[in-house]
């Protein structure tokens, strides 16, 4: 029986009441992102009545202490502000469960607690397990959920799991984790979160490509010269982040997941429909079609790694990467990576895709730029100065989400001279209403059983397969490509500039 009152009200999958169990409930992610996201959904009326939150962590806390800590952070970070009256009602749905992640008894008590919550609510026992703990506990949590029977949905209910990144550290560990997850939950109930996919502009990529007739005919190697995907950060290893980052590096921390996901959205073929598997089938084909850089020589030719040296960012002095807190002084972990990728398909044959990600760059920005080929060498190319540049379509992911198109125009006057001009669309100025946080959309989708914006097992493993060759060349080959350096506050090493220059291109100035 379908709900007749839903007609014409919302054009999205319908979230169902459930209990959200968050593992790692005392962590930063829970306080800064997850609970504020659920609170904002409640404020916007998107949250189904009867949703409960149960925080699971090792520290001793009462429900009241847990709620108080969440309230303090929510006041600071909530997108929609903090309304005492709404919070008062909202916090009644928040509970805390103290247990070690490896304690079987703790999971039995969790099962009892969930049954009790279901009884109090008088509703069905839908469960959404959110694993936001440190990655070393992922296996234990999943195995313990299975041992306690919590992976099994009750009649007419569902049990789903959201797994936070990092989803493995290489192909082998990702495959292992996938096996553990799939031994515990079915693939259809597994949601591997990549918050970049929840961002408004990332979602708009498909709309831009497939709802506008002017782009898709040009979206191929006949008209596109190359594509650049940049993720620049103007931060280093502040707040003790060096400990985690030095074991991970830019390639595994950002490229394997976020940036390859963006690449697949840019490069995929039109899906047959908008179902989760319809979209993900096309995305995974892109990752599978990447030319593999499977020898140290190919890695040296197509991938640049670098660390920043002491410099200035935003006018403030910053240390070099190896001088950062909790970073090995002899570290060989990259804080910057630039990769040249080739996609072996008819559409993209001969079109290089360049991805770069770096720490301590001049500003924070994530964007995709599609560089079109030059207009034919006739007419205006004979003019003094020629044609100033090819068309560039820029999709800004963050901050200042929007889309711009660079085109050439005549400078007013009696002589014929050309200058590039920019047509600019800003989400914030065109649609004054703020976009929901990525986690809001993704949590709601998981409650609704819509996995479109989550990574599927094969996507994750194919991405690791590509990344592993590079990691292997860097850390296990006899002739590892060198580690380059750049001054903090600059746009990266000269080697990265040379990577593009070899193809006759330059990095877009952000």
């Amino acid at each position, binding site marked *: 029986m379908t709900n007749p009152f839903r007609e014409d009200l919302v054009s999205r999958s319908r979230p169902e*009441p459930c209990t959200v169990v968050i593992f790692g409930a005392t962590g930063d992610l829970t306080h800064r992102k997850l609970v504020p996201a659920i609170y904002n959904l*409640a404020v916007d009326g998107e949250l189904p*009545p009867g949703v409960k939150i149960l925080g699971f962590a090792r520290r001793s806390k009462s429900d009241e202490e847990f709620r108080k800590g969440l309230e303090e952070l929510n006041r600071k970070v909530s997108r929609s502000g903090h309304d005492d*009256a709404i919070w008062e*009602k909202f916090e009644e749905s928040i509970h805390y469960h103290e247990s070690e992640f490896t304690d079987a008894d703790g999971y039995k008590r969790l099962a009892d607690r969930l049954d009790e919550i279901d009884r109090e609510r008088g509703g069905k026992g839908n469960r959404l397990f959110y694993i936001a703990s440190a990655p070393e506990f992922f296996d234990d949590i999943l195995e313990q959920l299975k041992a306690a029977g919590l992976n099994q949905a009750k009649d007419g209910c569902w049990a789903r799991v959201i797994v936070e990144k990092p989803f493995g550290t290489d192909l082998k560990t990702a495959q292992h984790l996938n096996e553990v997850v799939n031994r515990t939950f079915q693939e259809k109930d597994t949601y591997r979160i990549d918050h970049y996919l929840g961002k408004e502009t990332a979602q708009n990529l498909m709309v831009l490509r497939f709802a506008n007739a002017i782009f898709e005919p040009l979206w191929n190697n006949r008209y596109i010269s190359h594509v650049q995907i940049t993720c620049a950060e103007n931060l280093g290893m502040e707040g003790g982040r060096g400990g985690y980052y030095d074991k991970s590096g830019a390639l595994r921390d950002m490229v394997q997941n976020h940036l390859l996901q963006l690449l697949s959205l840019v490069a995929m073929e039109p899906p047959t429909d908008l179902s989760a598997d319809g979209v993900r089938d096309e995305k995974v084909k892109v990752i599978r079609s990447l030319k593999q850089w499977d020898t140290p020589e190919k890695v040296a030719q197509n991938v640049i790694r670098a660390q920043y040296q002491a410099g200035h960012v935003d006018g403030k002095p910053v240390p070099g990467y190896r001088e950062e807190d909790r970073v090995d002084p002899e570290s060989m972990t990259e804080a910057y990576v630039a990769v040249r990728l080739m996609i072996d398909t008819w559409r993209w044959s001969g079109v290089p895709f360049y991805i770069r990600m770096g720490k301590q760059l001049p500003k924070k920005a994530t964007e995709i730029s599609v560089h079109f080929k030059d207009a034919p060498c006739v007419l205006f190319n004979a003019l003094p100065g020629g044609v100033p540049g090819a068309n560039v379509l820029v999709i800004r992911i963050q901050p200042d989400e929007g889309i711009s198109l660079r085109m050439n125009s005549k400078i007013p006057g009696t002589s014929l001279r050309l200058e590039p001009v920019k047509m600019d669309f800003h989400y914030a100025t065109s649609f004054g209403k703020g976009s929901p946080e990525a986690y809001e959309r993704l949590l709601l989708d998981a409650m609704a059983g819509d996995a479109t914006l989550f990574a599927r097992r094969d996507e994750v493993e194919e991405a690791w397969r590509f990344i592993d060759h590079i990691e292997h060349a860097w850390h296990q080959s006899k002739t590892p490509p060198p580690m380059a350096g750049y001054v903090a506050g600059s746009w990266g090493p000269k080697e990265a500039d040379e990577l593009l220059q070899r193809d006759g291109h330059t990095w877009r100035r952000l």
Partner: protein
Amino acid sequence: MEVPIGSIDKELRKLWEQDDARTNASLMNFAVYSEAPGALEKNSRAIQTLTAEHACRALLIGIDRDAPEASIRAWITAHCHLSHGKKSVCCEQISFALTGKATGRLRNTVFAHLASDLPLIFWWQGELSPIFEDRLYSLVDRFVFDSSEWADPAGSFGKLVDAISGATRDLVVQDLAWTRSFQFRVSVAALFDDPLVLAALPEIDSVRIVHHPDHRGSALQMLAWLAVQGQWRDGMELDLAVARKSGNKEGFSFESQGGKAISAELVSDPESAPLGLVELSGGGVTVAVSREAGATHLMRTIEAAGHVVEAPGPVDPDDPAGLIGEQLARGGKNSLFQKILPRFRQFLER
């Protein structure tokens, strides 16, 4: 700044040339029409609020149809807002004051200043007058009005339905009285997302709606929506319903698809919010959406088998400009309103 009618475009260009730091943004043409004295000033304030979230070219139209002489004057201005605390984003406004017979000039002079290729949203304030005719609404993409302002809603809806059926192109109509019930409808739908509640839908036998006396139309539209979506037929007592109207209460009766009798009661309460309560019960389940007057959120409640679940939800704005802003953010063709319109009119004409 008052400008000659023939120089509006030139003066607008000058306005933007004065300051390079400002960005002119426009997603639509937004016209506001009123025959009430002093409306231009009041509506200019509403546009200032509205443009913070909806970039548009605003055309404010004030008409004094009873004035003996025909005249037209125009003013231009810009509404600027800081976006993300840095960029100044501005929307332009052209105000027109017309006197005397105005239909032809509305189309030929005022609408000559629409931004091309952008949709025209037309907010009609007050009663439908003779100005509301084909030459007007054939240019409009979305026609917005507030039926709670109408002295004779049954008659005015008749004119509107004639306009929709006779229009040469799709005319999307938007009643702010209907928008006023949006969050109540979303909340009712959300409550019925619960499978336990949904299973009780065929057993619903009682509906109660509390409304402010000025917002009976919203309450009737709410009831029409429940009846249409729930596929409730009119009950045997419909013809007697007028007799059942007494004091501040009026009764309706329906029959569900399964033959279950459903009684509905509308209660008019001067202390209520525009919509104060929508409650459905039957089969051991009661669902309610309620709002205290002036409250900044509404409350959704499910009572079933001794359990009570409560959750807050957002409210619709109380002011018309806020309601329009919400509606513009949602977009859509408002086909659901057209679907419930016949049933709503039937209730109105009882």
